[in-house]
């Protein structure tokens, strides 16, 4: 059941995160797999909870993972933002895998059952989004504008705030806001087209 978040391991991961930019590929691999395990565990626990009509809040999951894994006090803010950047990519994979698997397994049955992990909350307060549709629309957007797609990924699947995305991407928050705003129109169109 996931990893134990003992103080020493926490410190270990915190160090790894601190060395994100300078660490070896093996270090990154270790960090990634630890984060992924934890995210999967939390997501699965989420799925077992009673209310099937809840929409997944990636922010909540990612923060939960962060608190379990990382010794927060010792991480610089940009390290923390990096963590969420990693988590966003992993979260996207997990959610899409789950949604697809669930869909395949439940095809033809009531869709109610696949809701917990097939929708994410729009962080900007719009309506809930279909994970798979968003994922596919994001892939299309990446072909047009890879940087914008990454920003959206951080914002939607990582639950990062504009300021956090700005830190991860080394851009101004205003730019992030504009990129996200424009992307929303494009994605909305795209997702509707492919429904």
């Amino acid at each position, binding site marked *: 059941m996931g990893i134990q978040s003992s103080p020493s391991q926490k410190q270990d991961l915190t160090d790894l995160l601190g060395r994100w930019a300078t660490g070896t590929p093996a270090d990154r691999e270790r960090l990634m797999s630890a984060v992924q395990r934890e995210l999967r565990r939390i997501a699965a626990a989420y799925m077992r909870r009673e209310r099937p009509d809840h929409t997944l809040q990636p922010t909540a999951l990612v923060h939960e993972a962060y608190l379990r894994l990382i010794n927060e006090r010792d991480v610089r803010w940009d390290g923390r933002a990096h963590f969420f950047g990693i988590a966003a990519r992993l979260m996207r994979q997990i959610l899409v895998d789950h949604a697809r698997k669930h869909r395949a397994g439940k095809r033809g049955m009531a869709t109610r059952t696949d809701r917990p992990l097939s929708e994410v909350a*729009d962080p900007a307060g719009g*309506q809930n989004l279909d994970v798979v549709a968003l994922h596919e629309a994001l892939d299309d957007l990446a072909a047009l504008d890879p940087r914008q797609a990454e920003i959206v990924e951080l914002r939607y699947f990582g639950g990062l705030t504009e300021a956090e995305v700005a830190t991860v991407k080394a851009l101004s928050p205003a730019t992030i806001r504009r990129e996200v705003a424009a992307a929303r129109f494009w994605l*909305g169109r795209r997702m*509707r*087209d492919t429904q």
Partner: protein
Amino acid sequence: MNPSEWERAKALLAEAATLPAADRVRFVIEHCPDEELRREVIDLLDSPAALTGIVAGHALQPGARVGPYVIETLLGSGGMGEVYRARDGTLNRCVAIKVLPDPVADDPGRRSRFRREAQILAALNHPNIAHIHGFEEFGGVDTLVMELVDGPTLADTIAHHALTLTDALAIARQIIDALDAAHGQGIVHRDLKPANIKIRDDGTVKVLDFGLAKALASRTPSGTEAVSSPTASVRSTEAGLVLGTAPYMAPEQALGKTVDKRADIWSFGCVLFEMLSGRRAFAGKDVSDTLSLVIGKDPDWTALPSNTPAPIARVLRQCLHKDRSRRLADIADARFAIEEALTPSTEFDDTAGVSRAPRPAVWWRALPWVLAAATGGALAFVLLSGSPSRTTPMTAPLHLTADLAAGAVLSFGGTGSSLALSPNGTELAFIGHNLTDGVPRLFVRHLERQEDAALLPETDGAMSPFFSPDGQWLAFFGSGKLKKISVSGGAPITLCDAPNARGGDWGDDGTIFFSADRQSGLSRVSSAGGAPVVTTTLDAGELTQRFPQVLPGGKALLYTSLSPQGDFDFDKGNLVVQPLPSGVRKVVQRGAYFGRYVPSGHLIFLRNGTLFAQGFDLARLEVTSAPIPVIDNVAGNTTLGAGLFAVSNAGMLAYAPAGTRTRPIESIDRFGKVASLQSASSDWSDLAFAPDGSRLAYPVWDGKLWDIWVADLARGAPTRLTSSNSHTQSPVWTPDGRRIAFASQRGERKVSPTFNLYWQRADGSGDVQRLTTSENMQAPGSWHPNGKVLAFEERTPSHFNVMLLAMEGDEASGWRPGTPTTLLSADFDQRAPAFSPDGRWLAYESSQSGQLHVYVRAFPGPGSQVQISTGGGVLPKWSRTRRELLYSTFDGQIMIVSYSVAGASFKAELPRPWPGARYTPRGLLGFRIREFDLHPDGNRLALVTAGAPGPPIRRFPVRIFLNFFDELQRTAPPRGK
């Protein structure tokens, strides 16, 4: 779009996003010189609501509460206000809420316009017009609560491509129906455009936003509103609106002249042109350029696909005539063109034009789902008519408004049940949400006193109340505890912990059984308090045990269970009986929740929004008869397993009706092939074909009353036949098709009028004529083919009898009703009479055997009766073309019985099902709801299908049914089989 174009588009989009939605298009038009890119960007701006609600400064933010609704997302905004998608948190369904924004809320002119919009919209009741549910004020915020129509707008659908001819005409026809109905009531849309037209998954077209519609001068009683003056026109087309509208605006509208229904006809022409060609009829570089095209240039007719049928091309030109005096005068005329185009002799190639949006293969497919809650609005009214067991019959429903209780509304079951009746039925306890702070608290209303419900102190967050056996105490859950409080006053007393309670019940011996946690077994505790004792544990196949009831005698518990396959959908729940103190538990009913044993000897429960009853043997803890639907439209929460009903030992039922369903009417042929007869934005019942099959009469529930409407099946749009302040139901056509007899409460000055018989000309001319006057509830059944005798059912204080009413006179000298005579009367029910086509036989329902069956006997007699149905049956109908008699089983399957007649003997064969002809019965108590009728050609059935549930009824949330047990005994005998 390539990356460099996208860079430019992005800049425009990002900037536009900071503006109010209504101003974005204008911004893009003004700042994007590249026409191609501009189109693309505007197209993106018009993209689905899904991802556009990011602009700050809206009246409401997601999560905000407006009365009972929680705002989810902004759908759009315009000069008249912002529209939000909102969720009713307790019933888990969505509505559209239009909110007058704060800055203008103080402007009396706008406010009054807004109110008018509500009134106009509320008056429109048509399947192709998005319906308004209500106009409500919440804490100073004015809102319109409207039908939320899911699906793309026509603008989304035709953004880049033309539709196929078939799709375009199917959509056009429904737009015509909507406009025709509105114009018939003197209402002009004024802003018809693709963005105001939505297409649901089932193919139903809904015209949205009659926000600019104004009643024509003739319909304005005071005459004070200068409806069509240029200033009114200018005022009402404020910033933003003119932009989206310009390409569809009639020339006279663009010039600021008076506007009438012909402006809509122009706009319709523009929409049809665009659907067929994939191009706007008038598309200029900017708004002024567009308007100059509208005023001075013809559309490019060559843009129409070559397969456009001649009648369509012709009607398009007629619609788009600049001179409105030469324009198509009546939108209904466009319908003929479409029909002409669709007749098989007109051949066309349906492959031109590419339908971009993938469509369901079956355009009119039925909705595949039915949610828990449902309809039947006035059912309780009729259920209560006549009360055999009481000296003073209670003939009107007792409506309790929960907002009598100091601004609270009934909770629709957030985490618990919400209703409880004291054992003697004198007091109703309910959970009410305070309208200001949203906190649920416990209220008690004394039913025999005319006074407000009393708020019980210190009951914040209360849920799942239940009475003590002596009625002196109420137990409830709150703050993770089980508590009790005296009904007559005092503070609550905590009994024990109950962290996530899911209901409880107070046994006669003073032991309280309850579900302490949502995924646990049941516990018990003394009503004096103490440590709870675990009583039952979850079986391997159980996720939960909840809403227990101690069965009389205390020898067993009845509870609602759910297996892991149930997906927390309690429509898949199980009712389980657990003997006490121990014993083998058994599932007594599957696909059911919130089971309650009632002293009439029945187990009642909810399934798919319908209350069912079946016999239950307390000694053997077994069901003794098949479940029968008794009341539709009972609110329940399928993710919680709670039903919003309660029963007293004295035989009273209190329940909260769920919202009104919208029910499509389908026709089904003898092979089970389904076609749509009428799509629906309303609830209807009692289908009755005219004798020539050209028209269909049925009562429509408008949210307050049933009134009869008549649909001309060739033209489609139904028109209202009756209109009064009383319910009007059960239409029955005279054999010549001239008149419709019906049951109505009209003309009564009493507090609780009863249903008597009336008739009126089917074309709506002339007055309504009363046919009978009686204290007893009556409903027409069938006219004898001679047209002079009406068989009807009458409810005496003891039973339903079949009666005859002879009409005297003739068409020339006028008709006078004679004195009714009794045909069939016995100490059991006999009802729903139906004459055979030759008038020699009468079919009817009888409960002689202890269960309702359909019988036939000779008319006028003498002769014995022949049983037609097997396994129970109701609602006999004769075929006019074949030797067949139809009836419905209790669970809504239409059966066919072939018969032969030899001399005086009537021989019936075994019933066989009509393929695919199944409806969801609304319950068999009270008035028969005639959910189907046979077309006079004998080959098709009209059937009201289940449809989609509407929002909960909040204004009058509780219905009381006094003699419920008597009705159960009558309709669902405990040992029916």
